[in-house]
């Protein structure tokens, strides 16, 4: 065995999990699919005194279809999106993203809530849910709250999750069927974490666009100005110059190579949307 010793509690409900997470000075971490946390425990990179296993909480696995949105329980796996075992409101973007996270043996266990809670800047779901204007439902000792994905992600591995708080669900608004999505990801090897990724959602019928760049050194970047330009019909080199300028002025201190990489990824995501 590789990890240092820790205690373990198999939570029976969300309230039970929250009660066990709130335990003073000890480092208590919730365990969802464990596909990032357990490797970090094996490498002894993540200190932990106690794990609270969420996987037996049935409420966290439920998906609920509503008139204007779909509410995915935090424990819905990447494979469930890939196999379309859960409904889709994103014109196929979420099943696509689910299908190319890591490898099948990881996708069968890794969960959307776990991925978002970790907020690895290079992981796929955080950028995706920010692009889709999703909301995160949180439950904690002080009750329940909902916030936008954009406000949720505050930095690399940093989120708005409070002490003993859990992600309960991800609420994805139903995207209009006139919208087209484009995706581009640069990774050194199939299934690896991205060096850069971008998602473009373009709705020519409604004159709307949203361009998000992820795998940066912080939270995913919503390129507001570039999105407005795309919506107004700007294309080609002129659009690329706008994207590049917006990335350069984002305050992220990109090296020239990274700036070129992220700009190229964003331009290719926009181009990819034309194919759908």
């Amino acid at each position: 065995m590789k990890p240092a010793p820790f205690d373990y509690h198999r939570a029976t409900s969300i309230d039970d999990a929250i009660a066990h997470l709130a335990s003073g000075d000890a480092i208590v971490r919730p365990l969802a699919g464990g596909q990032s946390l357990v490797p970090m425990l094996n490498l002894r990179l993540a200190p932990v005194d106690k794990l609270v296993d969420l996987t037996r909480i049935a409420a966290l696995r439920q998906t609920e279809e509503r008139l204007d949105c779909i509410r995915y329980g935090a424990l819905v796996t990447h494979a469930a999106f890939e196999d379309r075992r859960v409904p889709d409101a994103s014109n196929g973007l979420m099943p696509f993203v689910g299908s190319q996270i890591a490898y099948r043996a990881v996708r069968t266990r890794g969960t959307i809530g776990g991925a978002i809670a970790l907020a690895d800047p290079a992981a796929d779901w955080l950028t995706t849910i920010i692009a889709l204007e999703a909301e995160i439902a949180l439950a904690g000792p002080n009750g329940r709250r909902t916030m936008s994905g954009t406000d949720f992600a505050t930095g690399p591995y940093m989120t708005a999750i409070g002490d003993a708080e859990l992600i309960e669900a991800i609420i994805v608004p139903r995207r209009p069927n006139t919208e087209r999505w484009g995706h581009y990801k640069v990774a050194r090897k199939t299934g690896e974490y991205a060096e850069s990724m971008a998602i473009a959602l373009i709705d020519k019928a409604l004159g709307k666009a949203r361009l998000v760049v992820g795998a940066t050194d912080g939270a995913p970047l919503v390129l507001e100005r570039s999105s407005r330009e795309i919506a107004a019909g700007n294309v080609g080199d002129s659009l690329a110059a706008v994207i590049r300028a917006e990335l350069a002025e984002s305050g992220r201190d990109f090296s020239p190579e990274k700036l070129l990489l992220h700009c190229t990824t964003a331009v290719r995501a926009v181009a990819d949307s034309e194919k759908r």
Partner: protein
Amino acid sequence: MKTSISAIINGKPVQSSVEPRTSLADLLREELRLTATHLGCEQGVCGACTVLVDGEPARACITLAVGIDGSDVRTLEGLDQDALMRVLKDAFHDKHGLQCGFCTPGMLISAWDLLRRKPHLGEAEIRIAISGNLCRCTGYQGIVRSIKAAGEKWAARTAPAQEQA
């Protein structure tokens, strides 16, 4: 503090008491002596420890043994009589799908899961699908040929049954 678990492993009920930090791979290898499950990287990268948990592939080195309580686990040993696994093993034999054999159990289980879901795959798709299983000796050529050949054989064998259904 040890935690008791009970699971079905290769069709047999198993009860054990494990430390929470014990991985499923260590439970299988050290306690149950099911040593077909190999441990390479022990951080979820190499795929050598891939087993089936409730019919789905999972990496046994990053699955905690406490987490499989109530689950059905199958290792390569437990697929000994399985028809698809037989076809795959024959294909790996015929097409030189292994050299040292260290990655083979994980490779076979990943391929089993792949062909069960998608028997008709081209070389490029097979390469993407096994990208989570590292082999350091074959260069993958023989492995890809083996999986492709097994897929064709399996599809031909199951096609009449599907037509009837």
